């Protein structure tokens, strides 16, 4: 086997292109005989020696088992005692009915008590919710009224502004004068800003230059 392994190693070293890590290559072999093989002839009649526990462990084990068995036995006896027919009371129809009735009365009493408690808390809760919703409705109404008032205010403001502006509207009889005025007075909204924040109005206007342009004088 070793020989084969060595051979394989050599082989794998020669073809390194296939396995980059040739040093760690191992062939997998069975550690024992395969599972499907029968017992070896030499081991066929071998009797393995009996396993012996140490003395202390044996004693302890026996003690544990004894106690376990005792416990199980007692439980078994107890259950037998409890459920044996001799110890069972005879089933009494009347008594059973009475018991059921009593039980029912008790249960219904408890139930009534609970219902009473729940009713109380429910009434409280409903009252509280009602008050809250009333308050909320009042608040909303107030808010809404406020919004309406504001809207009316803004609308009135707008109407007032338009009324004021309507004095300057160009009516057909004022049209001629307005056109005349517009033609004679051109408006220019363009402006430029200089570094000092001065506005220079007009599209064509030039900023006043601080440095006077040099005068070119003819040589004397």
């Amino acid at each position, binding site marked *: 086997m070793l020989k084969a392994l060595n051979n394989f190693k050599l082989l794998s070293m020669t073809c390194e292109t296939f396995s980059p890590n040739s040093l760690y290559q191992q062939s997998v072999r069975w550690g024992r005989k395969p599972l499907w093989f029968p017992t070896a002839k030499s081991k066929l009649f071998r009797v393995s020696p009996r396993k012996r526990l140490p003395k202390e462990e044996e004693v302890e084990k026996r003690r544990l088992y004894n106690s376990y068995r005792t416990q199980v036995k007692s439980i078994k006896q107890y259950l037998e005692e409890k459920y044996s027919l001799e110890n069972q009371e005879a089933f009494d129809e009347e008594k059973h009915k009475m018991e059921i009735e009593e039980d029912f009365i008790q249960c219904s009493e408890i139930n009534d008590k609970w219902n009473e408690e729940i009713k109380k808390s429910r009434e409280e809760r409903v009252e509280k919710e009602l008050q809250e919703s009333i308050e909320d409705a009042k608040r909303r109404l107030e808010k809404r009224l406020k919004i309406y008032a504001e809207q009316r205010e803004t609308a009135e403001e707008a109407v007032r502004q338009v009324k004021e502006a309507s004095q300057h509207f160009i009516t057909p009889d004022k049209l*001629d004068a307005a056109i005349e005025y517009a033609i004679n007075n051109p*408006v*220019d909204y363009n402006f430029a800003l200089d570094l000092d924040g001065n506005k220079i109005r007009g599209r064509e206007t030039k900023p006043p230059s601080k440095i006077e342009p040099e005068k070119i004088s003819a040589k004397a």
Partner: protein
Amino acid sequence: MITYELMLLLRIMPKPELVSTLKRTAESIYNKGGIIRKIENLGTKDMPYKTSVHGVVYNKASYYLMEFNVPPSSLHDILDEYGRDIDIIRRRIYKKAEPEYQECTLHEELQPAPYRKNVQELITQARKLDKPKFQYNTGLDYYPFQK
């Protein structure tokens, strides 16, 4: 009541014709039951690009602005009417937007990049994506053993 703004680009004309064109445009608004709030002349200037309408090529136009109220259903008719007017080069109607108030943040924007708030936010966002690094919790700012 929606206020609309009408931007008109008129072809360059002598004044009497200009007046009559403006009157025409205004009257079509009145006919739809509208109100004119403002007429403004934004000057005569070169257009950003040449435009050909009604078989003519224009490079210059007189810019006019009108603010008006009109039932929204009649906007289409008004635009259609102006589209057939040969004195109008371009026309467009916008809803008038109220100017929004914005706080001036120029002094912040003028700061160098790492001091700007939005840049700092971006940096913190980017730090969140960093790979977690193991903390030794030794209370030292160096690794005490040989690595």
